[in-house]
């Protein structure tokens, strides 16, 4: 009976190691869980930090970038000469491809109530290059801005656009509030 109770040295060491391992894993996990156990976090662009460098179009791991242009219509000036729509050196201020800033023609311009134009983004075409955002930010209300589309984003652990972003505009936000409105947007 007494012989069975006796631990061999290796068994004793295994018990100790197991205890220490459990203590470390449990301690780390428990401590972190107690500190901030939150639901999911998702990537988003803070439009107030974005400097329209254009890397969102090229650095996403997906072939089609998960970043697309978003239009806050409440902020839009409905300008005829929209600096987010027209090339700075346009020939005539119309919808001709040579006059458009957008390289893929994703901005659809329509005459709303005279003399105002509405500018809508064709999601299926937008590549997230931020050229329109740059124009709208420099000489406009900034109603056009980039946002991560969560139906396209894979929510990588390390977002490769975030790693390339020069202005640290990529942040993780709670999944129940996944979009960041630009200052002035009534959203």
């Amino acid at each position, binding site marked *: 009976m007494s012989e069975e109770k006796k631990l061999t040295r290796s068994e004793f060491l295994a018990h100790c190691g197991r205890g220490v391992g459990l203590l470390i*894993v449990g301690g780390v996990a428990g401590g*972190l869980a107690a500190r901030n156990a939150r639901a*999911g976090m*998702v990537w988003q662009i803070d439009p107030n930090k974005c400097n329209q460098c254009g890397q969102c179009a090229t650095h996403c791991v997906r072939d089609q970038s998960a970043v697309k242009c978003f239009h806050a219509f409440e*902020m839009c000036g409905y300008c005829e000469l929209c600096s987010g729509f027209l090339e700075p050196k346009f020939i005539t201020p119309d919808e001709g491809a040579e006059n458009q800033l957008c390289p893929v023609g994703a901005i659809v311009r329509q005459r709303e109530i005279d003399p105002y134009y509405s500018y809508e983004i064709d999601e299926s075409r937008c590549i997230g290059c931020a050229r329109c955002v740059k124009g709208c930010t420099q000489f406009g209300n900034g109603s056009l801005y980039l946002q991560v589309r969560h139906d396209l984003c*894979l*929510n990588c652990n*390390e977002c490769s656009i975030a790693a390339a972003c020069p202005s640290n505009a990529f942040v993780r936000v709670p999944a129940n509030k996944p979009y960041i409105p630009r200052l002035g947007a009534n959203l």
Partner: protein
Amino acid sequence: MSGRQTLLRACLVLLCLLPAIASTGVEYFSPPPDLGEGYTYPESYQAEPRAGWLAWVDTFALTVALTLAALIALRWRRRRAMVWLSVASLLYFGFYRKGCVCPIGAIQNVARALFDTTYVLPWVVLAFFAFPLLFALLFGRVFCSGVCPFGALQDLALLKPVRVPRWLDEGLSLLRYFYLGLAVFLAAMGAGYFICRYDPFVSFFRMSGRFHIWVWSGAVVLLSFFVGRPYCRYLCPYGALLGMLSRFAVKRATITPDRCVACGLCADACPFGAIREGEEDAQQ
């Protein structure tokens, strides 16, 4: 320069000089026009992220897979069942979930959370980090054998295993600790997630990626045609953690010395060099 353009430039300069009237506290370059009562703004589509309850499904799937792997490895002892389990894991965690979040990458999130108190660690990442480690304390590295999609991919790629010389095998396996240290250090410093950045397998799951990643992925897969699980054995930082804990596992695959006739067949058959002749116990 056309006349219209000059006019536009002049207008823009004039607008810049004019102090904007800030009635709503926001200064607009060209204030939004009053489009009348009848006008409704177009709807802006904003897709919702993946539903929160699906994180529970992922965690449940991980737990079930780990339990099954432990049962297959230690009780039922069926190699074929383990292959099917790893294929299922490859499909779910790899191709469906696109490899994110995985326990290997979660090391960095945990390291970051330990050093940066403002960093928010989602509970699902913590669960993915801790569950395989706890299972390793109980049943050894069952995560590696049947759950890890990377391991499954390398197992499926293995065509003709070549025996790696022992000195080389042991030397290279030290790389894992170096890699783990580097990744933890960089994550703790907030310098990005090194493991995820140079992950050789997620490019297959996403079927996209940049050129240098594809070169790296191709090299690892080519190597795993002839060397069993090269990433796991020589680079995987999570494998290093699991290996440390699995030494103290409650129950794990062993060779009973009394019944071993030392024929050496098992050491020859193991494509990963896990069984060495003259040693009493073996690990996955």
